[in-house]
């Protein structure tokens, strides 16, 4: 093992954390009310569930626009650029190394928060699954305006089926995502980081070229020596 010293590092900015937990809340509410509207159980009552689902869904749509704005103005989008480099090493780690207590092959750094597996997973979710949910959800919501918008050709059952399939995808992602938060150096390390912004990571791990954000003039990561 190289660099055994743990360093408390500021990984997630305030907006990033706010956005993460806001989206968590919105998606949880959408899943809970969505499955109720679909008839799986009774929780809020159908009418309220629909009203909440519509309101939260549209809220998500607007808030997501802010997120996209943030993503591109800060250059953070580069963290989502997929790569195959070390992808199999990471997969191998989660299949075997993690049980042996091996260190993570691609630890988090301020400039590279996502390992190759996360990059591909988050990109699929943020650029594909969530937009599919948002677009299908918006169309579902605007059903009565289809004729006025010249969308007569759309089929409600098709839109509903896509939205339903997407919902299962999101729920499935949520389960996997929540589980993965427990794989840090302590069970709650990742969650703590997403709340406070700070996470203890090993010192001295160099950024490899492919991980670097090609952005000029970025201040050095705020770090402080851990007392450990």
């Amino acid at each position, binding site marked *: 093992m190289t660099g055994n010293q743990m360093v408390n590092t500021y990984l997630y900015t305030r907006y990033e954390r706010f956005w993460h937990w806001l989206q968590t809340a919105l998606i949880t509410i959408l899943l809970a009310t969505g499955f109720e*509207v679909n*008839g799986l159980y009774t929780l809020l009552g159908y009418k309220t569930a629909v009203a909440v689902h519509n309101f939260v869904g*549209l809220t998500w749509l607007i808030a997501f626009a802010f997120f996209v704005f943030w993503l591109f103005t800060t250059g953070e989008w580069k963290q989502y650029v997929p790569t195959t480099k070390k992808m199999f090493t990471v997969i191998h780690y989660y299949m075997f190394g993690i049980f042996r207590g091996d260190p993570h092959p691609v630890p988090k750094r301020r400039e590279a928060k996502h390992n190759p597996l996360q990059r591909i997973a988050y990109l699929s979710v943020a650029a594909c699954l969530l937009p599919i949910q948002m677009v299908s959800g918006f169309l579902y919501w605007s059903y009565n305006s289809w004729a006025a918008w010249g969308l007569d050709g759309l089929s409600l059952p098709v839109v509903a089926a896509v939205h339903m*399939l997407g919902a*299962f995808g999101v729920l*499935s992602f949520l*389960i996997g995502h929540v589980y993965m938060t427990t794989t840090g150096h302590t069970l709650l390390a990742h969650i703590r980081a997403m709340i406070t912004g700070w996470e203890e990571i090993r010192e001295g791990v160099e950024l490899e070229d492919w991980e670097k954000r090609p952005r000029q003039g970025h201040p050095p990561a705020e770090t402080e020596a851990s007392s450990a």
Partner: protein
Amino acid sequence: MKFLAKIAAGWLCTGLIMTGLVAVPAVQAQLEVLDENQAPGRTMARQAVKERQVWITADHSRHAILQQAFTSGPEVTKACLSCHELAAGQFHKTIHWTWLDPNVPPGERIGKAGHSINNFCINLNGNEPRCTSCHAGYGWRDSRFNFNDEAAVDCLVCHEQTGTYKKFPTGAGFPVQEPTLFKGNHKTYNPPDWNKVAQSVGRPTRANCGTCHFNGGGGDGVKHGDLDSSLTKPNKALDVHMGMDGQDFDCVRCHTTTLHNIAGRTYATPAATHRKSLIEDDLASKIMCESCHSSTPHKPGAKANDHTDKVACQTCHIPQFARVNPTKMAWDWSQAGRKKDGKPYAEKGPYGKPTYDTKKGTFRWEKDVQPAYFWFNGAINAITARDTIDPSKPVDINWPVGRRADENARIFPFKVHEGRQPYDKINKNLLIPKLFGKKGTGAYWAEYDWKKALGNGMQAAGLSFSGEYDFVDTRYVFPITHMVAPKEDAVACIECHRADGRLAGLTGFYMPGRDHFKTINIIGWVLVLGTLVGVTLHGLGRAIARGRKED
């Protein structure tokens, strides 16, 4: 766009604001419009009914001609016509007089007086003196009745306001000349105080229309389900518009009248082809819900406003019919004729209503009935006694017209009355029995001989009978449009938006909450449960591995 604005406003309000508080005044302005009582439909409806005091310029009790000594109805009618000389001519042209659909050639015989059939007392032909106690005329005893006789019009039954004017149930439209007991209901009918009733005349009230329309089929609440004597003096809980503790609407408030032609549906002709507000057409002949409430009656942004293009107001706002008095839901003629000790008998069941009568067979009565729902464009098609039927399955005697693709069709509530009634085994058509009459006339209610009764009934209707009959199950629908409940009692979303809900029987369209995609659900749950099992096993593996390391 309004809704988007609302979302944006609400979103900012809930503390998720990211930039600027400048939108706050706009938010407040928005919230004022969202006040429940500001629903445009309610506001419009209120405006439509305010200041509705009617005024008249004549006092009929002072008219000398109404103070003469009358001895019969036609004499009163002649007195009325001495001033209202066009009234009988107008009335003669209406369905209330002809009992034939005015929108098809009379030769087609569509109507009560023609070959139209129901599954109550089936048809008028051969049974006139009993059935025509509900005719606004005097003396329709048989097919020889003179429909051009102006004095035969009964002005009083619709216009008298004392509530004492009663036509005798088997009197061909005449009241009695001396007190007479009617064995059918054990009530004694008295001759009218002609001067009193004639001098009382005014605009028809619920009681006038209800004389016949609450008692169709021979008794209170037998036929319609949404029309019975409980609407004579209803409260708002029974009908928000007619409720005497509210607007106290009379029937003619919505069933507007021109030259004695009363607006409403007649057979295949809708009451109105387009649902327009009075703002669009303030001379619309029939007042529909939309006339006063508009097509977006709920508060802005309410999902219910998006339903009005496909779901009739009645569907949500009449959760049950027959909410005070029971209504007849089934009538099996095939059971008629059973006797006790050689004598006809009758039995009463729940609600004190007859469940068996030797003359008529078995009945089923129900209260608080949940309607059946069909696509409906306002027209109801029906077969007649001339049409060929398929007796191997229940016969729809009439049915609502409309498909989902119809722009004017909406999901609409109905009462479905189930019958079992005679049909011709050889000619394959429904049969008209002669029910009413004295012994020797072949009437079923006097002789209990179906073959004779059917032969005589069909002959009276001018139709043929092979002599071989059996009984077939039939269905008859009534649109449910009265007994509109207060909005708190409206049908909740979940009552339709679920798999086993009220609209489970309507197919051909996707409805959230009701319809599911089996394959997608299977794929979805395999994915979700697979993930759950996967992470659980992975987690267990880590826990075990860590445990070993610590050992």
